[in-house]
């Protein structure tokens, strides 16, 4: 970025020739207003608008060009004119057999990247017949007790196309071991296994609560996954760092970015301490953020996060591969802003959230169904969520140019402000001993809880308007309905699990669990003994229990409120 001030036009010419043209040659969407046959030497490409000269705001340093450091305007040279954002859809859940059927249906229709939602006992490392699992088996996702269930879900499916996303954190290492063991049995070599694990354990202590072990051993497991994938699974996306859940728990926009980036810094430093090279793993860290209906601040948030990440990775961590500098993120509807009152209003909110995320240049968006605050989405409401994205993508034209808000006085000021405030928060967290310490002594959780309370008071005193809730009410009370799995399904799951425990080679299981326990006492990577235990058909509860016998279980937050 050596161009002098005032030479934006020259810099743009270089970008068009060296960066844009090769990307355009790979194709643009037909709908894009870039005229067919446009070539770099013919003049400014209409899919990006830039100032003619630097107006003293540091255009080249602060904004630059899409696909180039610091990526404020997007991580790809052509962004949506080249390829639209990925439209993620609600995936459904049920038993392992039902999940298998659903996945076969989706794969037959060309959809990959399948989302696997696990029920809470599975997320917490409990078998389906654990007393603590009563009433929770199969409620919010599929129950996976052992390799047997993972095989039922994936047997006979084209796994490379399926590329499943395993939404697991506390037991992410166990889920990955079960999936790798399944894929190997299906004949897929390690280097072709693709998919995603969320594996973002720190946000569980901050917001979502699905932790098992205390933070330090949990962080070790999380880094074990990254190290294993870096060495053996080149196509596995081993981490999705989530700001989403913190914002849902009440964090402000700035806290969402600051805590997520501070968590990511903690993971990076732990990886570096293991001896991994920054450029061997950083490019596979992706993010998952929320999008509320506040269009401009939300769009600015994504732009600021990209710039912060690029600077962080290049300047602080010394990454040399540009792929390591790129902040890739998915976004989802801010569920906590959707209301049970007058639920149709949520259709409009989701459209605005979608617009905000797209103006922010996200890689994917998950649109919530309008009735999610009330019930499991119906086929109708799930389809309407997809249609919302399609109207935005194909009718509004919002994706036909790159970063249309770039250069707006308002949005650039917001972007700078968020970047500055997030930077200050991260600096404060680090000065106070880092994110792990802030989590262990509950300070960070307290900050989020205070933000949530402040927001609730603003809603109750009318400072913040929520249509249909504190203004423009119609007096009707919402009626919530819940998904409940059939008792027969739960009984069948438990019967299958108990039969497995009787019929498997229990000597082999005991040996594998013994090795897992021994390794947990040491410093070795636990993915290897987990794989061995998974292949021996040890249950998820047994594997997590073996580690808990060494690590203990985490219990936080209890006590008298000050």
């Amino acid at each position, binding site marked *: 970025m050596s161009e002098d001030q005032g030479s934006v036009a020259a810099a743009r010419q270089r970008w068009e020739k060296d960066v844009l043209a090769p990307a355009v040659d790979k194709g643009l969407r037909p709908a894009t207003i870039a005229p067919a046959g446009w070539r770099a030497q013919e003049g400014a490409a209409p899919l990006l608008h830039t100032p003619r000269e630097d107006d003293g705001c540091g255009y080249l340093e602060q904004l630059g060009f899409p696909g180039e450091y610091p990526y404020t305007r997007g991580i790809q040279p052509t962004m949506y004119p080249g390829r639209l954002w990925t439209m993620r859809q609600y995936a459904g859940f049920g038993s392992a057999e039902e999940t298998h059927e659903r996945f076969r249906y989706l794969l037959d229709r060309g959809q990959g990247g399948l989302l696997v939602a696990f029920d*809470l*006992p599975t997320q*917490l490392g*409990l078998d389906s017949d654990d007393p*603590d*699992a*009563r*009433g*929770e088996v199969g*409620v*919010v996702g599929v129950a996976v007790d052992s390799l047997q269930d993972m095989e039922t879900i994936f047997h006979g499916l084209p796994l490379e196309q399926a590329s499943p996303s395993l939404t697991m954190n506390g037991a992410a290492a166990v889920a990955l071991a079960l999936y790798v063991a399944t894929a190997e049995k299906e004949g897929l070599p390690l280097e072709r296994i693709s998919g995603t694990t969320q594996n973002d354990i720190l946000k*569980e202590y901050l*917001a*979502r*609560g*699905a*932790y098992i072990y205390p933070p330090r051993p949990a962080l070790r497991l999380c880094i074990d996954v990254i190290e294993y994938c870096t060495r053996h699974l080149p196509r596995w996306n081993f981490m999705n760092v989530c700001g989403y859940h913190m914002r*849902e*728990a*009440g964090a402000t926009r700035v806290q969402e970015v600051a805590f997520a980036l501070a968590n990511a810094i903690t993971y990076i430093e732990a990886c570096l301490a293991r001896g991994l090279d920054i450029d061997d793993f950083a490019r596979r860290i992706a993010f998952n953020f929320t999008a509320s209906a506040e269009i401009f601040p939300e769009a600015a948030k994504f732009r600021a996060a990209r710039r912060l990440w690029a600077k962080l990775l290049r300047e602080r961590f010394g990454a040399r591969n540009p792929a390591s500098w790129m902040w890739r993120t998915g976004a989802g509807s801010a569920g*906590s802003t959707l*209301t*049970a*009152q007058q639920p149709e209003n949520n259709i409009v909110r989701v459209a605005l959230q979608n617009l905000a995320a797209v103006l922010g240049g996200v890689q994917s968006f998950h649109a919530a169904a309008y009735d999610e*605050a009330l019930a499991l989405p119906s086929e109708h409401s799930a389809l309407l969520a997809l249609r919302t994205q399609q109207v935005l993508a194909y009718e509004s034209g919002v994706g036909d140019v790159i970063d249309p808000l770039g250069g707006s006085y308002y949005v650039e000021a917001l972007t700078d402000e968020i970047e500055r405030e997030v930077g200050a928060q991260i600096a404060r967290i680090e000065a106070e001993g880092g994110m792990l310490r802030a989590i262990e002594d509950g300070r960070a959780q307290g900050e989020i*809880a*205070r933000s*949530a*309370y402040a927001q*609730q*008071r603003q809603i*109750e005193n009318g400072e913040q308007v929520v249509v249909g*809730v504190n203004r423009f009410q119609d007096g009707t*009370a*919402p*009626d*919530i*309905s*819940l*998904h*409940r799995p059939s008792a027969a399904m739960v009984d069948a799951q438990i019967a299958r699990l108990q039969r497995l425990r009787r019929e498997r080679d229990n000597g082999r299981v005991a040996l594998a669990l013994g090795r897992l326990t021994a390794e947990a006492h040491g410093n070795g990577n636990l993915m290897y003994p987990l794989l061995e235990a998974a292949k021996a058909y040890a249950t998820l509860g047994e594997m997590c229990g073996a580690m808990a016998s060494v690590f203990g279980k985490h*219990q*936080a*937050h*209890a*006590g*008298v*409120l000050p």
Partner: protein
Amino acid sequence: MSRPLRVLVAKPGLDGHDRGALVLAQALRDDGMEVIYTGLRVSPRRIAGAAVQEDVDLVCVSILSGAHNVVFEDLFTALAEAGGEDIPVLAGGVIPNADFAHLRALGVREIFTPGSALADICACIHRVVGR
């Protein structure tokens, strides 16, 4: 002057969504009550034990996992066993109208679903405890 109201805010079930519980706890504290929060994933037995041991005037139970029917059945059994059958219990969370009658029959005094105002919950607590 009487001692301040003591309230146990409890979070049973496996879900970790405690935004509502933590916001409520702060609101009750600002209302002048003494608040004890159990933390996440606490069994009905431990909730009942804490309620009796801490000599609370009322228990607020927040649950979003959908397991509320099972949880409240166990909680009232545990309260009776621990000698806390007179401690009033309020419920909050994602609870369908269809389950209201069952929960009330078990002994839940009032049920608050998403969108409820903190002031209404505070007022309800004062009304139920009688001061």
